[in-house]
């Protein structure tokens, strides 16, 4: 169970991505997402794939952690491909049978959308896998500070983000524990049809909420015990600062956007 949840999962290693400032990672991710959205031809896809593969290699995180992040969206992706193949029209007809007609363009279109989503998910996973959730939220908070002028509740929002990121793995771990405890007392989660499997998880939900609340209470006590106030003017235990490598990475990301923009112009 836990191994299928990627959001908020941080894998410790000492790659360049781990050492970067979360802010530069967020900015770079933003650039890369824009760059990938600009892709509209085959060379763009090849380049983007190479870039992603390169980044994954540099991250020192085994591929399986990235692939796990793709698993939950596989169904949606498969649906997208089929939808495109079956329902969009193109010029080169490949196959026709009564009302069903399949065009070369729609096959290409379907697969390129999927490839694009794949690449986007992988590069986003890179951020969450190499950044501690709290650092991420902290970086997010600083980057969004200008929005404060527009009365956007930046601090509350990033605290919410931090807590969510922090607690998803905890809750999933809790779920794992309860499943293990119930297995030990004779519940069978394995040999069941899909519907039965889903149903068999229902009795877990109450214990899950129950133990999570209990644990939240303990956490609240622990926070109080360490004299955590209302947060006004609190000092941070970790101060973020940019280093050369952060500027370099942002520079490279901007360059990537430029390259993909050119590719779109030339290729199109």
């Amino acid at each position, binding site marked *: 169970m836990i191994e299928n949840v990627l959001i908020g999962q941080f894998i410790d290693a000492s790659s360049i991505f781990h050492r970067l400032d979360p802010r530069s990672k967020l900015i770079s991710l933003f650039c890369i997402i824009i760059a990938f959205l600009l892709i509209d031809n085959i060379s763009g896809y090849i380049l983007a794939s190479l870039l992603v593969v390169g980044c994954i290699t540099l991250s020192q995180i085994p591929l399986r952690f990235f692939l796990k992040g793709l698993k939950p969206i596989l169904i949606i992706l498969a649906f997208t491909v089929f939808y495109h193949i079956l329902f969009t029209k193109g010029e080169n007809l490949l196959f026709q049978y009564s009302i069903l007609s399949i065009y070369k363009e729609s096959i290409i279109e379907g697969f390129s959308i999927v490839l694009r989503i794949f690449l986007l998910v992988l590069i986003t996973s890179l951020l969450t896998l190499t950044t501690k959730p709290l650092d991420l939220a902290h970086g997010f908070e600083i980057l969004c500070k200008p929005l404060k002028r527009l009365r956007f509740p930046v601090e509350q929002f990033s605290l919410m983000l931090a807590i969510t990121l922090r607690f998803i793995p905890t809750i999933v771990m809790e779920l794992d524990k309860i499943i293990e405890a119930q297995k030990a007392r004779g519940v069978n989660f394995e040999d069941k049809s899909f519907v039965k499997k889903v149903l068999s998880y229902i009795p877990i939900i*109450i214990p899950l909420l129950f133990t999570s609340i209990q644990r939240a209470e303990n956490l609240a006590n622990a926070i109080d015990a360490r004299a955590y106030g209302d947060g006004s003017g609190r000092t941070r235990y970790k101060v973020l600062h940019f280093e050369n490598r952060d500027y370099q990475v942002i520079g490279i990301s901007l360059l990537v956007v430029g390259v993909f923009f050119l590719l779109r112009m030339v290729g199109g």
Partner: protein
Amino acid sequence: MDIKLERASYIYPNSSINSYESLRNINISIEAGKWISVIGHTGSGKSTLMKLLKGLIAPTTGHLLINGRVNELSKKGKAQIISDIGLVFQYPEHQLFETTVLKDLVFGPKNQGIEMKEVNQRAKEMIKLVGLSEEYFQKAPLQLSGGEKRRVAIATVLMMNPEVLILDEPTAGLDPLGSKLILQLIHDWYKAGGGHRTVIFVTHEMNEVAEYSDEVLVMNNGEIAFLDSPLSLFLNHDYELKEFGLDTPDTVKLLQLIEQRFGDYIKVESLQEEVVLREVIAYFKKQGAEV
């Protein structure tokens, strides 16, 4: 019930980057009726081994055999829980999940398909057996004290009427009296089986090991370092145990002290407190001391 592991190893699927083996090349055969103590430094793989024996997790390589038969699903890499083996988790918080003690107690037997009437009857007996009363039935398990939680955890497992009872550090964090009560409870359950019940007991308390076990399993870095009787282990391998960061029972310390001071090695048949004290008193009497 005989339990056997053959060339078993285990790697946690979600462990961090360099997935290493939490257990390596485990070969062990546990006969029915034995009391086995399991010791080893923290992180040596004791808890993992216990989950493997219960069938909660399947060995990454190798097999689990129950009464000489390979646990079918363990071949497919899936865990198959063995309901005749009861496992008391290391942390009672991980074991108890229901909203009331009573619900937690009846959870297991209900899954075994036992009639509600009998289950309720059992719950009443069991809560007394572990030294609590029916007043506890409606309490929330996670709001009990540490010692109470452990008792309830043990009760939830005994409710399923296992042949083999695996306990992962059931006395950790309890005061001496609390530990003693729990040990007494487990020992009574063990004796009541007339030689058919097995106890596998993980502990850091060497006196508990010396007092109760037929055999001691020593884990070190995910491997079995020794499997021996307490007498032979603590007297012949005390040097290695020290290397593993493990202590020796008080009775062994006493025997060694006498050997150092008086140069006499007192021969004993077991390391149980009573036996060793009797021999020591006999020795001093022979030396002419008034005891």
